[in-house]
């Protein structure tokens, strides 16, 4: 019954020779070391397949980004990994536990931040935290300690007695994050945590998330923002219930499907991007062209120079596809395949 003492705890915390339950180190990860190990996950609702043969592995401490259009199965997959929805096929272990058999256990060790603000608007920030602490079975002393830690981390101190409904977007998300972290989970799912939040608050929230990742907490984040996707260690793209690609942003950009043989990506910077777009699209060698602010990204079979395009003053140079290019290309080709 002897468990290794967490560093820094004094022996006065022992009661009768046993370390208090909530101070024990979390159980070790499975032998293969993955936080999430999912194979062939298929989830169906009647005749509709929401998730189709998805494989997913996430390593401890990783920030994993889950992307894909709305309705393609991201939230369903997460719910499945939390043990809320049964798998039609496949299996998954989360933090070393089988999701299907030990769903309750899994849920007590993971955190979840849902898409909509789903804390109680008529309860104060403090009351929300106390509620979740009670739900996760934290003792009063543990609750106090964790709350203090997390309030310091997120800066929610001045807002403790404000009702949930009166917090602005960024602070609501911080409160939701605190409530998801009270029970010290090693893994948290965040479903579009930065939706509808101003850029400064977004950046601050991501800084928080990276600090958590540095402490060894695994994060699975769904997002639509490409810049956030670029910041993730690894990214997976789900399109219409299929996981089209998984890998680091760099790996994804190198995928052959994204850059067919004989083609390359060009960035054309210049004055009138809309006009450039028209000209490029008229060209048969151009497979794709998209406006990116002041420049245009094009996927072409040939090299152009500015003169070829009849645009003086434009600069053309080779570039890597952006993650958005990756996803758009993958989606289009999948759509074409589905069509055929």
């Amino acid at each position: 019954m002897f468990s290794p003492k967490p560093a820094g705890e004094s022996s006065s915390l022992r009661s009768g020779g046993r370390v208090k339950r909530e101070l024990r180190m979390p159980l070790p990860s499975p032998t293969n070391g993955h936080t999430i190990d999912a194979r062939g996950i298929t989830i169906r609702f009647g005749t509709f397949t929401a998730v189709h043969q998805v494989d997913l592995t996430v390593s401890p401490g990783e920030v994993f980004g889950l992307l894909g259009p709305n309705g393609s199965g991201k939230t369903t997959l997460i719910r499945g990994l939390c043990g809320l929805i049964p798998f039609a096929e496949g299996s998954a272990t989360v933090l070393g536990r089988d999701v299907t058999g030990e769903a309750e256990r899994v849920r007590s060790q993971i955190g979840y931040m849902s898409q909509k603000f789903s804390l109680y608007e008529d309860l104060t920030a403090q009351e929300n935290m106390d509620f979740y602490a009670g739900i996760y079975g934290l003792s009063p002393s543990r609750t106090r300690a964790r709350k203090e830690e997390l309030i310091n981390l997120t800066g929610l101190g001045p807002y403790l007695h404000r009702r949930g409904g009166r917090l602005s977007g960024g602070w609501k998300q911080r409160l939701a994050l605190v409530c998801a972290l009270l029970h010290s989970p090693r893994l948290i799912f965040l479903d579009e945590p930065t939706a509808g939040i101003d850029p400064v608050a977004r950046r601050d929230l991501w800084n928080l998330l990276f600090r958590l990742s540095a402490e060894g907490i695994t994060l699975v984040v769904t997002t639509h923002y490409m810049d956030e996707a670029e910041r993730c260690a690894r990214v997976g793209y789900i399109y219409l219930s299929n996981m089209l690609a998984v890998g680091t942003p760099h790996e994804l950009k190198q995928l052959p499907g994204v850059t067919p043989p004989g083609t390359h990506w060009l960035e054309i910077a210049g004055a009138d991007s809309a006009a450039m777009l028209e000209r490029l699209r008229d060209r048969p060698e151009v497979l794709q062209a998209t406006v990116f602010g002041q420049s245009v990204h094009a996927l072409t079979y040939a090299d152009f120079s500015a003169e070829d395009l009849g645009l003086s003053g434009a600069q053309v140079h080779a570039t890597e596809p952006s993650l958005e290019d990756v996803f758009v290309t993958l989606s289009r080709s999948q759509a074409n395949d589905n069509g055929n």
Partner: protein
Amino acid sequence: MEPNKTFSWQRTASVARKETLHIIRDPATLFFAFFIPVMELFMLGFAINTNVRNIPTVVLDQLNNQDSERLLRRFETSDDFRIVRQVYSEKDLNQAIVAGKAKVGIWIKPEHSRRLETGATTQVLVLVDGSESTTAGEALNVANALALSESLSRVLKDQPLPVEVRPRILFNPDTRSANFFIPGLMVVMSQMMAIMLSANAIVREKENGTLEQLFMTPVRSAELILGKLAPYLVLTLAEFCTILFFMNTVFQVPINGNVFTLLALTLPFIFAFLGMGLYISTQVSTREAAGQMAMGTMMPSIFLSGYVFPIDSMPTFFWYLAQIFPTTWLIDAARGVILRGAGWAELWMHALVLWTMGVAIIVLSMLKFRKRLG
């Protein structure tokens, strides 16, 4: 940290505490819980009187002598009729009733005395407005009784009547309507509150997405349901007691039996309707829809439970149907305790039925809720 695989009172208490905060912070709930039932109580208690009294009456007295005076005095001294006007033609008599100025018209013809003297039967015409069947029925019965009584006294001269019926009304000697309606009102109000509050409580969380968040936590559905419903149980009981208190003090309805017996019977009743509210919450996803479904269950309860209309006069099928509603049982029990001073010896069957219904409904609704979690 290991989750508790068994039922956790700590989690249940957390949910109950949170729900209590919601109740305190939502003035609409408290308004609904206390103000509306008390208002209904006052309205019903003061306004409604099903005893027919003081029926407005017009008189066409074409005789105007001692005989007609004597007859009309009989009518006047009975509480039932109140003579509002004298008319002087048949046309005016009819007019008064059609116009709604009177519900009864009495016509004493000129040959009234002459016929009495010759020993023939004299006829007094009594016109009754049949629009309100209760009033009409009462008016008819009393008019007939008065005529009979007048006839008998003329025949017997000074001798006493051979057969006399001694009515003695038990339990509600003044036949006060308040005594009859208010216990029923208490039950019906508690039913409405229990079902609406519990349905609302759960659907509200569905609506604003907090239910999904709760599913992600280790809280079990039994803990969630018990924690959420417990404050509403307390609230409904408090409301029940409030009406009981007002009934006793303001409306002077005496409680002849033991209040705690009544409360003990009310408990399973409230469980039953909290359970119904829970069931409704599994079927709908907006609070409006929940309200509509709740109202849908109220209508048959009000009409079939004996609250307004006596069940004994219903066709057999509906009498049996009435037994299915917990409302019927508790209304009878409430009237039993309050008006008749009934105790456990008389009401054990009610207790048995109500507890069975209460537990069954809660358990079934819980199972339905669990299935819906998916």
